[in-house]
């Protein structure tokens, strides 16, 4: 492309994408600068003094609910509506301290299965497990022992052993 040719072309035409391939670096730079200038000139801005950004230390709260700790609005008394009574407990509960709640949970877990239940269950469990791992002969003797609970397993029968025949 000769110098004469490029001079004839208008700047707007040269700014187009497909024209920029053939342009040399200087002209390209010039065009870009011009473009930037146009863009910044056309930007609007408000002619105002800068705002002093102050963080407000006053918060507005329009509701009475957090001020007076108002409770849930549905109520039922003496079991008139049991659903609402459950809801009352649920909705008014979170205001209590969390520690207390946790403590309550622990006690509830304890009382879920009483100690007696536990003892009975383990007592029978020990028995059945013992039966499972014992041998057939022991099982029969266990059955006989059922009457006295606290008795320790004492071998009533002498241990069977091979008796060597006498010559």
């Amino acid at each position, binding site marked *: 492309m000769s110098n004469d040719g490029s001079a004839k072309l208008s700047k707007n035409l040269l700014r187009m994408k497909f024209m920029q391939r053939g342009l040399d670096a200087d002209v390209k730079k010039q065009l870009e600068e011009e473009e930037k200038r146009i863009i910044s000139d056309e930007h609007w801005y408000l002619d105002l003094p800068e705002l002093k950004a102050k963080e407000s230390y006053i918060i507005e*709260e329009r509701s009475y609910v*957090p001020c007076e700790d108002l*409770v849930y609005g549905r*109520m039922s008394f003496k079991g008139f509506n049991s659903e609402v009574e459950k809801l009352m407990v*649920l909705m008014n509960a979170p205001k209590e301290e969390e520690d207390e709640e946790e403590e309550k949970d622990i006690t509830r877990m304890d009382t879920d299965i009483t100690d007696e239940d536990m003892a009975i269950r383990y007592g029978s469990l020990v028995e059945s497990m013992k039966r499972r791992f014992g041998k057939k002969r022991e099982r029969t003797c266990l059955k006989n022992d059922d009457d006295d609970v606290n008795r320790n397993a004492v071998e009533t029968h002498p241990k069977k052993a091979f008796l060597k025949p006498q010559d």
Partner: protein
Amino acid sequence: MDIIHSCFKAQIGEVVLPGDVFRFDVSSVEEDSRVKAEKIICGPGLRRNGDEILVYKSGVLRYKQPNLYWIESQQKRYVPIKGESVIGIVTAKSGDIFKVDVGGSEQASLSYLAFEGATKRNRPNVQVGDLVYSQFIIANKDMEPELVCIDSCGRANGMGVFGADGLLFKVSLGLVRRLLTPQSEIVKDLEKIFPFEMVVGLNGRVWVKAKSVQQTLIVANLLESCENMTAQQRRALFKKVAEGAL
């Protein structure tokens, strides 16, 4: 922070009037570095105006730890406030929304999808004239208020249509707040009389239901009379009713 508190301190428990101003020296407040961590909350009846706090309700100035001030006032007109639970009356059904009268300056809108378990196919059964216990999700002074009958998890938690029988009546907003305070004395006295159910909306509407129409009326009349009674008078009246004098 003490600077701000000190300008309130003298007035706590005193009567203040609309137009009263709480002013503090801003320059000294800014020097106080603790202010950035601590903020002051002005509750109902107080409004921020630049660097001062204006009173716009007449009543008694109250204070709650650590930094909450508000005006305890007596009024009957309800102004919708975001997050408050109210009793509304459905006045119109129009396509996707219900119009609900909550006693404010404008009727609130309630979407048919804002009920527990509601989908586009499964519409809630709401008729004109039904009572709904619901809470405000939008309440601006320049916009139509909007109600919902579900919480943020999508559960109803007792909100929605209620009140097949029972009686709805209006009391002052002050009495409603007295009923809703934790361990309210009025409620404690009332529940001794006989089993009943009550829904209290912060907009001043109260709905009660007991076993018979007569008992419902007794509860309603007792609640209404609580408006202007001292604690002694109330106890005397409730005792009479419990003995069956009414």
